[in-house]
C-alpha cells in the first residue's frame, strides 16, 4: 500500500484513541501510568494465549479455539487489573494531584480500558500496516481493495469496545451485577469470533454487526457511568 493509504488507515484506527489520550489522559501522570499498566496486562494475556496456542499442537489450525481462550484470558486479566486498581485506590488517592481519578471510580475503569484497547488495536493493525509497505494494494489474488480500510475500522471498534467493556466490567464487580459481567464476556467472544468471517470476505457484514455492538455497549457504558438520557439531551441542545 502506498503512503497516503497508510496514513489514512492509521488516522482511522488511531485518530479517535489519540484524541481521547490527548484530552483525557495526557495531562495527568497517574492516568498515563495506569494506561501503560493496563496495556502491559493485556500483553500478558496475549502471552498466555500464545503459549496455550503453541502448546496445543493439534488445535493450532482451529482458530476458533485460540480466539475463545484468548478472550477468556483477556477477561481474566481485566479482572486482575480491576482487583489491583481497587486495592491500590487509597494509595492512589494519596499521591494523585488530581483527585478526580479516585473520586470518580469510572475514570480508572475508562483509563485501563483505553490502555487495553490501544494495545489490542495496535496488535490487530500493526501487522497489517507493516505488510502494507510497498506500492501495491489488496486484490491481486484475493481480497478486496477495501481490506485496509475495513481493518482499520475494525481496529477502531475493538479499541472503543475495550474502553466500554472496562467501564461496564469494573462497575459490574463493584455492584455485583452478574448480568453485565456476562454481557461483557459474551459480547467480547461474539465480536472476536465474528472476525473469523472475514476469511470469506464478509467485511461489510462483520463491520456492520461490530459497530452495532459497539454502539449498544457504548450506550450501556454511558448508562453505567452515570449518564442519563436527560443529560444527553441537555448536552445535545447545549444547555
Amino acid at each position: 500500500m502506498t503512503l497516503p493509504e497508510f496514513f489514512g488507515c492509521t488516522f482511522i484506527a488511531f485518530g479517535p484513541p489519540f484524541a481521547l489520550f490527548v484530552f483525557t489522559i495526557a495531562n495527568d501522570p497517574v492516568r498515563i501510568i495506569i494506561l501503560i499498566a493496563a496495556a502491559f496486562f493485556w500483553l500478558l494475556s496475549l502471552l498466555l494465549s500464545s503459549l496455550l496456542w503453541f502448546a496445543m499442537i493439534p488445535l493450532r489450525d482451529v482458530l476458533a479455539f485460540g480466539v475463545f481462550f484468548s478472550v477468556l484470558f483477556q477477561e481474566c486479566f481485566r479482572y486482575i487489573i480491576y482487583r489491583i486498581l481497587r486495592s491500590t485506590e487509597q494509595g492512589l488517592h494519596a499521591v494523585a494531584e488530581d483527585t478526580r481519578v479516585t473520586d470518580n471510580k469510572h475514570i480508572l475503569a475508562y483509563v485501563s480500558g483505553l490502555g487495553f484497547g490501544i494495545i489490542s488495536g495496535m496488535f490487530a493493525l500493526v501487522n497489517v500496516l507493516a505488510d502494507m509497505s510497498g506500492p501495491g494494494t489488496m486484490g491481486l489474488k484475493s481480497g478486496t481493495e477495501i481490506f485496509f480500510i475495513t481493518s482499520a475500522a475494525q481496529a477502531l471498534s475493538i479499541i472503543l469496545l475495550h474502553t466500554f467493556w472496562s467501564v461496564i466490567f469494573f462497575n459490574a464487580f463493584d455492584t455485583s451485577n452478574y448480568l453485565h459481567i456476562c454481557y461483557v464476556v459474551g459480547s467480547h467472544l461474539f465480536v472476536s469470533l465474528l472476525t473469523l468471517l472475514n476469511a470469506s470476505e464478509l467485511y461489510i457484514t462483520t463491520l456492520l454487526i461490530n459497530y452495532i455492538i459497539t454502539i449498544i455497549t457504548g450506550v450501556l457504558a454511558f448508562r453505567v457511568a452515570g449518564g442519563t438520557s436527560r443529560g444527553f439531551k441537555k448536552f445535545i441542545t447545549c444547555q
Partner: protein
Amino acid sequence: MSHAAAIWLLMLLQGTLTALGERTRDKMYEPILGASCFRRLNGTHQTGCSSTYSGSVGVLHLINVEADLEFLLGNPPSPPYAPLIPPHLFTRSNLMRLKEAGPKNISVVLLINNAEKMKQFSHELNCPNQYSGINSSETCDASNPANSWNPWGTGLLHEDFPFPIYYIAEEKEIDKLKDCFEKFNNKNYETHALRSLCAIEVKSFMSAAVNTEVCMRRTNFINNLGGSKYCDPLEGRNVYATVYPRNSTPNAIEGTKTDEKFILVTCRLDTASMFDGVGLGAMDSVVSLAVFTQVANLLRQILPAQSSLPDPRRNVLFVTFNGESYDYIGSQRFVYDMDKLDFPPKSAGGSPIAFENIEFMLDIGTLDDIANIKLHALTGTQLAQKLLEQLNTYAKSPRYGFNVNIQSEMSAHIPPTSAQSFLRRDPKFPALILNARPTNKYYHSIYDDSINVDFVYANTSQDFTQLVEVGDFKTLKAESLQMKVRNISSIVALALYQSLTGQEYTGTKVANPLLADELLYCFLQSADCPLFKASSYPESPTALPLPPMRYISVLGGSQESSGWTYRVLGYLLSQQKKIPKENCTILPLHFFAGYNNTGECRLTTQNYSHALSPAFLIDGYDWASGQYSTWTESTWSQFSARIFLRPSNVHQVTTLSVGIVVLIISFCLVYIISSRSEVLFEDLPASNAALFG
C-alpha cells in the same frame, strides 16, 4: 433470534476451517521470475539500464501490434506504464520512441519470450568493437549495414535506457502477466485513472553512473571505512595450451626469450547479451570454439613426435580469449603481456614467449555459414597464399569429400575478431583469420541458442576422443552441424599439419563428429555431459544440467566457461602416461576421469592467463583515449520483479481523506465531551458517595 443463531453457527464453521498462515503481503504481491538488463560503462559512456533506487513501477500493457504502442506514447490515462513487448516489436525504433517518452510515461519495459513472429534479434552494433580494432574505415562501415559485420544489429546493447528492461522467458510467468493485464487493465482505457490497475515493480538499481572513469574514481576514493564498490572491471581468464609440452627449463634466466617457434591458433571464448545470465552465443562463438577444440584434438593425435618434425622447435599454441565481445579484453591483454615478456604468466613457469617466436596466427572467427568461409588477411602475403592453398587442398580433395571452397580476402575489411588486437599493434603481424559471411540474425542475443544453429544432440554414448575414418558419419546426417564442424576443423587441422611437417597428410582419419556433438551439447544444453565428465577429476560432483555461463563477468564471477574450457583443452591436448593415480598429482601431470570413467593420468599443457584490460593496470590511464578496453560492470544489490494491484489515485485520496476526517471529528468531539462532561454525567456524586461512603 434465529438470525443470531445462524451467525454463531457460521462463525463456528469458519473457526474450524484450517487457518492458512498466509501473510497479507503474500496476497498482495506475486513475484515474477526473469532476467534483467544491467548497466555497463566504458571510458566515455554508460550503457544498459537501471531502475530507480526503490524500484520502478509501471502499469502493465500488452503490446500485440505496433499500433498498441501509440496508446502509451500518446497521452496515456494513468502513467507510468510498463509495456509487455514481444521480440519482433523489440526494435530499435520502438525502443527509442519509448526512451523518448521518458520515465514519466514509460517506467519499465518487459520483453516476453514469444518468438513466433521474430525474424531477427541482435542488439550488437553493426560494427562490433568498432573503435578497438585496426583504425580503418574499410574494416567496417556502420553507415552501410548490409556490408557490415552484423547487418541485423540494432546497437541497443550500447544504448542507455532510463528504465529497467526485464526479460521474462518462462511461459508460466508470461501467463501471470497476461492474465493480470486482461483481468484488471484491458478494459475501459478511459477509466484507467479511476481504477486500481495491475502493475509491475522491477528493482534493478545500478550503483555506477556516467562512465568508467567516474566510477573507478568513486570506487577508489576512500571516503568511509567500509569502502563501497560502484563498478568492477570486466575480468576473466584466457585459456591456452600447446600441442607439444614445452620444455620446462626451471633454470632459465628470467626475461630470456626462447627459440621456440609457435603457430598461434586462437578463438573467442565469451559472448554477450542484454540480459543477465541469458545468452549462449551459439552461432557467434560456440561453433568456433567447437572447431578450435576439434582442431586441437585432431592435431595432437596426428602429429608425429616433436623431435621428428623438420624443425623440432616448432609447436602450436592454442589460445582462447575471454572478453572479446567487449573490445577484445583477452587479446589486448595477451598482446600487452607478450610485449612485456609476461606471457606465459610467471606462475605457469616456462620461458617467456615474444612476438618473434610466433610464426603466424590463425584466428578462428565467427563461422555462421560454414560453407562460405573466407581466409582474411590485411595484406596478401606469401604465407597467406600458402595457407589458403593448403586449406583448399584438403577442402576440395576427393579423398575426404569435404567439398568446401575456402576463398580469400586480402584487404582491410577484417572481421571483428581477436586478430585485430595483434594487427593494431603491428599491421605487419602475420595474422590470418577464418571467418564466414555474417548470416547470424541473432548475434549477441538471447536467441542465439541451439535452435539458431540447428543443433540436435545425437547422444550416441560412443567414444568421442578417438579419430574416425573419413567415411564414418557416426549416424549423423551429412548436413548436420556436427558434420560441418568436423569438416572445417579437419581441413584446418590438416593444413596446419602440412605447415608443421612440410608433408601432405595422407591418412584417412579425420576429426570425430561426436566430439563436436558432445562439446556443443555441453556448451548449449547441459554442463552435466559426458565430455565435461571425462575431463574432470574422477567422482567430481556433477555439474548443473544447464549450459555454462559464457559472459566474461567480473572478478568473483562464475568463470564457468573458462573453467570447463581449461579442463577440456587439458584433456584433449594431453598425452596419456602410465603413472598411478597416487603419483599423478603435480602439474603438468593431471588425473582425468576419462571417456569411460576409468581414470587416466595425463601430461597436460593447458593453463590460464589473466583477461583484464591493460587499462586497469596502467597508472593514470587516459580512459577516453580508446587504446584499451575500459568496460566495467555496475554493481547492484538485487534483481527482482513482482506484480500487484496499484491503487488508483482516487482510492488513495479517499482513504487519506476519510482518515483525516475521522481524526478531526474525533478531536472535536472528544474535546467537547471532555469539557462538558459534567452535563452528561450529572448524577455522578451520588455514585461516588456510594463508593467512598
